[in-house]
């Protein structure tokens, strides 16, 4: 019998306590360091090693390199870099394997779109996606 009263008192006291919910769309969420959102790509850092495309478990990264316009420079520079975000599983492998941190994760995640075409992210889009970039100290 006392247990009932204790339970009732407990739930009654909860009413005035601070709420644990977050007014998400109205107030912005601050995500923890290891949150995985859509990638940011820095073309000037890329050395076209193709490791990200090879390691991607869903094969959603496609890239093409070309000869550098500067004849003194060795190696290739990036020409096109696309992520098919329809099938990207945000596994973080591409950013882990990248030797130059050319591809990094951001905490941007609001990606709902009306058309599937909009989920095809090209080099320009990924380069411009430079907000909330992860610091790399995760």
């Amino acid at each position: 019998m006392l247990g009932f009263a204790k339970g009732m008192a407990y739930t009654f006291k909860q009413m005035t306590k601070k709420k644990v919910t977050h007014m998400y769309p109205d107030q912005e969420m601050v995500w923890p360091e290891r949150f995985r959102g859509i990638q940011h790509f820095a073309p000037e850092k890329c050395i076209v090693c193709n490791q990200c495309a090879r390691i991607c478990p869903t094969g959603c990264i496609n890239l093409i390199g070309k000869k550098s316009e500067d004849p003194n420079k060795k190696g290739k520079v990036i020409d096109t870099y696309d992520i098919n975000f329809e099938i990207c599983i945000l596994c973080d492998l591409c950013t882990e394997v990248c030797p130059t941190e050319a591809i990094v994760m951001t905490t941007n995640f609001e990606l709902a779109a009306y058309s599937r075409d909009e989920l095809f992210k090209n080099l320009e889009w990924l380069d411009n996606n430079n907000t909330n970039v992860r610091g790399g100290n995760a």
Partner: protein
Amino acid sequence: MGAYIEQSLGLTNSLVFILSAAALLGIVLGFVTYSIYFQRKILGWMQLRIGPNRVGPLGLLQTVADVLKLLLKEDIIPKAADKPLFIIAPIIAFMPAFGVLAVMPFTESIHFADVGVGLLYYIALSGITVLGVVTGGWASNNKWALIGAMRSAAQMISYEIPLVMSVVGVILMTGSLNLIDIVEKQKEMGMWFFIPQFLGFIIFIIAQLAELSRTPFDLTEAESELISGYHVEYSGFRWAFFMLTEYVYIFAMASLTTVLFLGGWLPPFEFLGFIPGIIWFGLKFLAIVFFIFWLQATFPRMRVDQLMQMGWKVLLPLALLNILITAVLKTVL
């Protein structure tokens, strides 16, 4: 109202009857709308959430939006269902829920029919609702609906008996089944019936929760076991009618508890008599409604076997004991 009932039926008084019934229906619907809102709010607060807050200011229009959605939904009747019974079941369930309010005195002047056997009328009529529930469960032609309906029948029949037995103490002390007389008696005695009839009051509260199928006796719905019990196959406005029945019964049961045990429209102390009776009635009534939602946020659901044992082995003997004690005291004192 009494004067109109005395007259033979004519154009004026039938118009008065229809309009006053419509007004009561409006009040009841308003109550149902905002009791659902406050139920969700209170449950939210007790679970450290905010509750509905998107539709309208503070979410006040949430229930309105929900009802509108239900009314706009396609009217689906399953192919294998028993069509006439399926259609009539929500009506059978709802009509007595509203019908019982006819004898409910809100104050000494605001009431509808002043029936001599008001309490008997209430209990007899409220027993019909279970027929609507069982009909709905049967007509759905679905095993979950049928299990829910059977549980509902077992539960309501088991708890109807302690419910009636627990109010016999009140009837013995008053010497009348008239609900207005019961309140007048409490005024005369100078204390509300929950003090001299404490055992009866506790039994009544428990049995009424079972009658209302509210937590911890919500076995008929049991979302986690039976999806939603007898109304699995219902949708749209027919489902809305079952929900409406449930909440109108909260209105009716909270009113009945107020009248029987909490002194109806009487003020708690004499010097507070300047505040009109309807406000006292409203306050007591809202306290009971809040109590029901509070229990819902606190207790888990009972098991079926525990439910039956509690009804037959605990509540019924206690209710009989209460009658005995009341009868002895009435004879001796």
